[in-house]
C-alpha cells in the first residue's frame, strides 16, 4: 500500500514536471500564430473583462495603499527636496529674465507641443493587469486593435515613455515596459544632443542605462534623456518611438570620458504605479 502511494506520488510529480517542460519547449518552438499563443489570446479575451472589473473594484484599496506609501516616501525625500528647492530658487531668478524674453514664444511652443501629441493620435487606456513577478516587464491595457492599437506603437503616461505594444487582441493589449531586457530605445540627451541607446540596467530591473557612447560624449548627472525618434535616413528602419518623449534623468556616469562610459538613467515613468496610459497610434510625424 505504502509502495503504491509513493509510486503514485512520484508518477504525478514526474508528469507535472514533464508537462511543464513540454509546454516550455513547445512555446519557444512555435510561431506567434501557433496553438499555445492562440490559447493565450483566447484566455486573455476571457479574463481581461474580469480583470478590468476587479481592477476597478479594488481601486479604492490601491489608492489607500498608494497614499500611505507616498506619505512615507515623501518623508524620506524631504532632505533631498529641500536641497533641490535651494538650487531651483537660484535657477528661477535666472530663468525669470529669460522667461520675459520668451513670453511671446511660450504660447507658440505650448501650442506646438499640444499639436505634436495630437498628431500622434493618442489612445487613452486603463491598466487592467500587471506582471506579478519581480521583473515587472509588462502590463495589460484595456484597448486593442478595435481602437486602432497595433504592435510596436509607443506607450506614454504623464511622466514619460512607458514602453511599446507587443501583443494586441481586439479589446486588450500587452505593453512591454522600457525596463524589459528586450527593449532598446534610441535616445538623445536633450541638453547636449548626445545620442545613444537606452536599455535596462543589468541586475537592476527598474533602472536604465544609456550606452553606445564614445569617449568624447559628455553627459552629466541631472540631464534629461528623451527619445531620438527615427534617425536612419532609410525608411525601412523606423523607430517605434516618436522623438522628444522624455525617458528619464541621468543619475550618475561610470567611467566618464572613456569609450565604455555607462550613463545610469532613472526612468520618469514608474512601471509599478501605472493607472492610465496613452498609446501613440501614429509614429513620428516629422517633428
Amino acid at each position, binding site marked *: 500500500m505504502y509502495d503504491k502511494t509513493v509510486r503514485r506520488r512520484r508518477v504525478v510529480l514526474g508528469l507535472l514536471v514533464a508537462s511543464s517542460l513540454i509546454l516550455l519547449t513547445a512555446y519557444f518552438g512555435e510561431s506567434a500564430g501557433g496553438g499555445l499563443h492562440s490559447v493565450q489570446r483566447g484566455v486573455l479575451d476571457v479574463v481581461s473583462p474580469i480583470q478590468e472589473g476587479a481592477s476597478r473594484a479594488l481601486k479604492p484599496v490601491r489608492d489607500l495603499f*498608494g497614499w500611505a506609501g507616498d506619505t512615507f516616501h515623501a518623508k524620506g525625500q524631504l532632505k533631498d527636496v529641500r536641497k533641490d528647492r535651494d538650487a531651483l530658487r537660484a535657477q528661477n531668478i535666472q530663468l525669470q529674465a529669460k522667461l520675459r524674453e520668451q513670453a511671446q514664444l511660450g504660447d507658440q511652443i505650448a501650442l506646438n507641443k499640444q499639436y505634436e501629441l495630437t498628431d500622434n493620435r493618442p489612445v487613452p487606456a486603463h491598466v487592467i493587469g500587471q506582471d506579478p513577478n519581480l521583473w515587472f516587464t509588462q502590463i495589460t491595457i484595456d484597448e486593442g486593435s478595435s481602437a486602432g492599437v497595433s504592435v510596436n506603437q509607443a506607450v506614454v503616461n504623464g511622466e514619460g515613455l512607458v514602453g511599446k505594444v507587443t501583443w494586441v487582441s481586439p479589446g486588450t493589449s500587452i505593453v512591454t515596459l522600457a525596463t524589459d531586457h528586450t527593449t532598446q530605445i534610441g535616445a538623445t540627451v536633450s541638453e547636449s544632443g548626445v545620442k545613444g541607446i537606452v536599455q535596462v540596467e543589468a541586475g537592476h530591473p527598474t533602472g536604465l542605462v544609456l550606452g553606445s557612447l564614445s569617449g568624447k560624449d559628455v553627459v552629466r548627472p541631472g540631464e534629461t534623456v528623451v527619445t531620438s525618434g527615427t534617425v536612419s535616413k532609410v525608411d525601412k528602419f523606423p523607430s517605434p518611438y516618436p522623438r522628444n518623449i522624455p525617458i528619464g534623468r541621468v543619475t550618475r556616469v561610470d567611467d566618464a570620458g572613456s569609450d565604455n562610459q555607462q550613463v545610469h538613467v532613472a526612468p520618469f515613468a514608474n512601471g509599478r*504605479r501605472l493607472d492610465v496610459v496613452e498609446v501613440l497610434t501614429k509614429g513620428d510625424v516629422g517633428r
Partner: protein
Amino acid sequence: MRVAVPQLVLRLVLVGIVTVLVQVSAVTQLQLFGTNADLMPLVIAAVGLLAGSIAGACFGFAVGLFLDLALVQTVGLSSLVYVGVGYWAGRFRELRDPQSALVPLAVGAAATAAAMVGYSLMQFLLGVEAPVSFLLAREILATVLLNGVIATPVYAGVRRVLLPALPEDPRRRRRRAYTTGGLSPLSRA
C-alpha cells in the same frame, strides 16, 4: 475517511482563479516598504500544507499555467516553479507533520524565497542578461519578509475555504500516544 474529491477540486479551482485575479489586478499595484507581496507561493504552499503533496503540486501546476496564459508570458515557466513549491510544502507536512503556529509563516517565507529564486534562475537560463546583484537580492529579501508577514492570514483564509472538503483538520493535534505513565486502555479493560 475518504476525501470529498470533487468538492475539494471545486474549491481549489475557486481559490486558484480568485488568487490569480486578485494578484494581477490589485496586489501587484500595492507597494509596501518599496516592494509588492506575491500571493501565489503563499496560497500554493498553504494548499500543499493542507491537502498534501499531490494536491499541492497539481494546484501549483494549474495556477502557474493560468497565470502564464492570462499574462501572455512564457507558458510552462511559472508552472514548473510552482509545482516544486506545492510539492515541497505537501511533503513537508507529510514527513514532519508540524504543529507549531509559526509553520504557515516559515513555510510561506521559504516558499516565496524558493519561488522567486527559482523564477529568477529560470529567467537567467532562458536568456535574460542580468547578473545577480545586490539590488536583486534586496528585492527578493524584501518580498520574502513582506510575504512572511501576510503568510499566516493567507493560510488561515485558504484553510477556511478548504476545510469543509478536507478529510481531517491538519492543524488538529493528534492525541498523544499512550507511552508513559498510567494504564493503557487495554490493561484497563
